[in-house]
């Protein structure tokens, strides 16, 4: 029991160290030797938990992916329309990726590995499924167009958000992420929301983003 707890603590320390390095210098530059040194561990301890550098990356994508998915799910409230929950959920995901170093490293890794790594594929798949299920509800509630497949809409939202994150990361080191996400949403809403719901959701988006901007003034 004690031994198991200690082993878990060791594993966590290696992950923490890898997460810091991936966020600071990127995955390719973060060597196993650096990770071990920062974690103050032996090579043996690392290999006991992870077969390879990629196994370590997979663990980070698993844990970080779960955290991002939870942030999205927790943002949904039963008394609120699904389309509100989707927009709010994406804001919460953006926040999690900004503030939570594990989630941040995981999202960087997923971009690096994409379909080449099963952990990245699983995490993307789970998120896409959660998004599509919300979209289905939003269609049933009459807020989202029924003439497009919910899967297609879910994919478009998820893809656009990933792209916005990537561009913001590449062009402004992630500092204008909030602004990018809002701009992308405006275009998306025009495409997917029913005409008589459009003004409401544009206003909902602008309220969310102005409150988000107040919460993190460095973004404006």
């Amino acid at each position, binding site marked *: 029991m004690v031994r198991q707890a200690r082993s878990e603590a060791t594993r966590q320390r290696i992950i923490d160290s890898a997460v810091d390095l991936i966020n600071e210098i990127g995955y390719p530059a973060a060597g196993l030797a650096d990770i071990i040194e920062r974690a103050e561990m032996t090579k043996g301890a690392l290999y006991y938990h992870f077969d390879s550098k990629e196994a370590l990356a997979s663990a980070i994508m698993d844990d970080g992916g779960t955290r991002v998915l939870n942030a999205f799910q927790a943002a949904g409230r039963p*008394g609120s329309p699904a389309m509100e929950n989707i927009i709010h959920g994406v804001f*919460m995901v953006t*926040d999690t990726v900004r503030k939570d170093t594990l989630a941040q490293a995981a999202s960087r890794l997923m971009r690096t590995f994409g379909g080449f790594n099963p952990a990245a594929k699983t995490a993307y798949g789970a998120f896409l499924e959660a998004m599509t299920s919300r979209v289905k509800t939003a269609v049933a509630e009459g807020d989202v167009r029924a003439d497009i497949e919910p899967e297609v809409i879910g994919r478009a939202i998820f893809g656009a958000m990933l792209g916005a994150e990537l561009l913001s990361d590449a062009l402004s080191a992630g500092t204008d992420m909030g602004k990018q996400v809002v701009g992308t949403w405006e275009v998306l809403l025009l495409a997917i929301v029913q005409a008589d719901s459009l003004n409401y959701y544009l206003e909902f988006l602008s309220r969310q983003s102005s409150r988000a901007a107040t919460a993190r003034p460095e973004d404006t």
Partner: protein
Amino acid sequence: MTEVVDKKATSTRLEIIRAAAREFAVKPYSLVNLDDILTHADVTKGAMYTHFRSKHALATAIVEHQIDVVLTAVDKLQTSYSSALETLIDLSYLDATADMSDEMARASFNLLESVGRFDGFQATVLEGWVAAFSNLVRQAIADGDVTETSDPVAVGRLVVSMFLGLRQTSDLNEPKTLIGDLEATWLLMLPAFADPRRLEYLRGFIRRRSALAIRNTAPLVNRNL
């Protein structure tokens, strides 16, 4: 060992509260007798009297239990970036749907009206409720949703009064009626204190919640049939 005993005592207490709520939800205070509650709760008279010395003590406990439930819900509603006026509106819908579909909520609203008028309990609970709503209105003024000239306490009091009155005049067994009345009252009250530029959005916010509440609420009476 004590911990085990404590845990058992807590669960017995909760079981009695739940059984009592089932009675108070459907009968006036004066018609509820402790023997009926005992039959439902599957506890001995001795156990009941260890926890509650009187019907009044039991009634108070139900209301207090429900307050805890609502406070937890408020924490959940106030997520990041939520606006205070939206939280206030959401709370009124939450109370209304709980009043229709949840025995504990129904019992506790019933009891709030029938007990504690003379011992100050009712006043304490209502004061706390008004104070919590007034705080939300204060934040809503800061958010820009409520006009600066509005008196937070007066608005808080108005919303509480509206809800307590509505559950008397409307139909708790018919979601369409109760939620329809709740919506109509909100739409009527809003222009009195909401920023005119936010009105259209807030109307949309309210209508969307009404539609969901009507669709998702299963009233107690239908379920018991």
